[in-house]
């Protein structure tokens, strides 16, 4: 880990703020004041720390995440693609720009068993819709698609979430 990354790590007060907002932002007119009271610090400090954590990227954004199942997006496929390493930095952002792709990452190959280096999660309201999304990605990649697969989840085996609150200093 680089020195810059270490410097950017949240301190004890940041962590307390993270834990206090894990269940969400309070639904009261002055939510940052309520958090401040809980933590025993000033509201200005709460707002400053939230702003700074956003600037450092510890907080990606403050906002709303809809329950995509409740909205009808019940078909989620992990699509994996074998694309040329020298072009992946161009292709990754193009896949990410598609409205139905929620995550797009480069991950390592394990040849010959696992040739795929580009992962993109797609979401649709039906199997036909996700199949069409996979087709659209394949068309977009053209000759750079050296093979792909779609891994639909068949069962949740465990879901506990990340244990952020348990992390001490």
């Amino acid at each position, binding site marked *: 880990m680089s020195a810059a990354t270490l410097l950017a790590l949240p301190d004890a007060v940041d962590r307390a703020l993270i834990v206090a907002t894990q269940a969400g932002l309070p639904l009261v007119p002055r939510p940052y004041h309520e958090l401040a009271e809980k933590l025993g610090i000033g509201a200005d400090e709460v707002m400053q720390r939230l702003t700074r954590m956003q600037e450092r990227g510890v907080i990606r954004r403050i906002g709303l995440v809809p329950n995509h199942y409740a909205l009808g997006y019940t078909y989620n496929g992990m699509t994996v693609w074998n694309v040329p390493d020298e072009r992946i930095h161009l292709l990754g952002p193009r896949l990410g720009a598609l409205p139905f792709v929620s995550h797009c990452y480069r991950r390592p190959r394990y040849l010959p068993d696992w040739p795929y280096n580009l992962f993109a999660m797609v979401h649709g309201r039906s199997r036909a819709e996700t199949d069409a999304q996979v087709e659209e990605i394949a068309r977009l990649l053209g000759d750079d698609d050296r093979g792909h697969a779609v891994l639909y989840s068949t069962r949740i085996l465990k879901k506990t979430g990340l*244990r952020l609150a348990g992390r001490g200093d």
Partner: protein
Amino acid sequence: MDDIDRAIINALQDGFPVCERPYAAAAEKIGIDEAELLRRLAALREQNTISRFGPLFHAERLGGALTLAAMRIPQQEMERIVALVNAHPEVAHNYERAHVFNMWFVLATETEAELLAVIQTIEAETGYPVYNMPKLEEYYLNLRFAV
């Protein structure tokens, strides 16, 4: 869910202000008042239409180590291996997927060294290789859905 609910969901997916009366500021942009925004958000949360409202954290930047790992488990061995893998508290999510690589789990630890140690332990306990597939590059992450 009506048009105002949809407008709220779409608007707040893009961000939420940090100021003294953030709901009032966000409501004004949507064209409703603060009390109505608070009332509707509470109802949407109650109906489970919202899975999260608040700061969204970048897990890796909170100081821990994180990876995605995959295994290829013969169907008749699945339940035995699931129990062995899930017994590790470092396993946060675990999904079965329709593929030869049929088990996919997220490992979260304090350090990189611990990640590798857990992987080695799981390999020793189960007798199957664990394919460590950490994120090498993030091109996009968004949980935004237009409604």
